[in-house]
């Protein structure tokens, strides 16, 4: 069993992700108690998990970026890029799920006083520019360095933006807003944890799949060059 596990790590990870996602869907719809908000609240189990997963991806991307600069590991550049790519995907999903939630709660598709949504909008813009940067610099150590420095700026931007958004509310929306984070009962918390685990595992699976694909691409190009 353990040799099979070692040889098929990616498949095992994918299977785990599938299992966790199924479990979390089941829990969300059949186990967790229905809140005062009704069915709409259930999207929250996914929304927060997706958001935290996006943060985790950006953090992992930032860590790999640090390795590029500090240790000079060029392989870390690809890992940083893929992690940030996953982060942007999950970030976009955060915006979508958050928007759906806002629509059913408040009646419109966007709410500026949802700090989380605004933060993700800023981060989305920031990391979209990351891709623009990458695509306009030819591949090589220079691109790896620039991407890494920019990714680290992203890590610093997150706490600063959180603070900025909170500060901005005082002059943009002087009305008081209600907090939406529920104080979770035990069963809700458990469901949330399973959802979070499911999202993280899904992100990890996608990360490894994309990374493997990109590495093969690089290797193929190297071989093609060598044959020329």
């Amino acid at each position: 069993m353990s040799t099979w596990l070692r040889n098929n790590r990616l498949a095992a990870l994918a299977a785990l992700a599938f299992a966790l996602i199924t479990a979390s869907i089941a829990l969300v719809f059949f186990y967790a108690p229905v809140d005062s908000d009704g069915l709409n609240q259930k999207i929250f189990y996914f929304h927060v998990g997706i958001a935290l997963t996006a943060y985790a991806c950006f953090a992992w991307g930032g860590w790999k970026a640090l390795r590029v600069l500090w240790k000079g590991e060029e392989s870390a550049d690809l890992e940083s890029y893929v992690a940030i790519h996953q982060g942007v995907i999950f970030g976009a999903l955060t915006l979508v799920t958050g928007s759906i939630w806002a629509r059913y709660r408040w009646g419109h598709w966007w709410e500026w006083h949802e700090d989380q949504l605004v933060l993700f909008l800023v981060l989305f813009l920031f990391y979209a520019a990351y891709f623009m940067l990458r695509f306009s610099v030819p591949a090589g150590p220079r691109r790896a360095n620039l991407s890494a420095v920019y990714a680290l700026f992203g890590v610093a931007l997150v706490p600063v933006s959180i603070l900025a958004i909170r500060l901005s509310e005082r002059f943009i929306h002087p009305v008081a807003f209600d907090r939406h984070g529920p104080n979770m009962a035990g069963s809700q918390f458990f469901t949330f944890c399973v959802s979070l685990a499911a999202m993280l595992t899904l992100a990890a699976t996608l990360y490894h799949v994309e990374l493997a694909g990109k590495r093969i691409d690089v290797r193929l190009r190297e071989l093609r060059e060598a044959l020329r």
Partner: protein
Amino acid sequence: MGRRRRSCTGYGPLVLRDYSGMVIRARGVEKRYGDKRVLRGVGFDLARDGFLLVTGPNGSGKTTLLRLCAGLAIPTAGELDVTPERGRIGYLAHESLVYRELTALENLDLYGRLYRVAERRERIGMLLERFGLWDARHERADSYSRGMLQRLALCRALLHDPELLVLDEPYSGLDEEGALLLDRELDERRPSSAFVVATHDPARIELFATSKLALA
């Protein structure tokens, strides 16, 4: 073990030298930019008073190799050891590396400060005079002809008396007078500096070279 060389004008004495410590060691150096492989399997040694002549057609990677030696790029694979530190290397590129809106004097003064050149003003004056630019020293570089710009670039490269000179097509743009000035300069510096020189036209400096590298 020594090696005999004669100065190119034939006037210098025969000199015996020993090699103790390489200035550059290259082994299997490769440089790739994304998919494109520009250099492949380059290896050579350069001694403290060596003169490496790099030849090859356009696009063969001469400029890339020189950039690697100067420290502006790092190899994708292989080993490249360049002993002198940054401040002891002089680099001449295709571009002049001078600010067009500044005068020759201002440009050299800036580089002189950055390179911590001792007796900066005297050295600048001496170099400008050697290359025939003294009279034009207060004129902006954008009013210079191609040949004068190349001479100014040479002054910049030589300003800090480098141990290693990496010159990319140093004769390009020079008129006959300028070329003779450069000949004289190379001849005088050969005993005390190492050279890596890329050129299209090797005939002129073939006699200086202690080793050659032909890039495909």
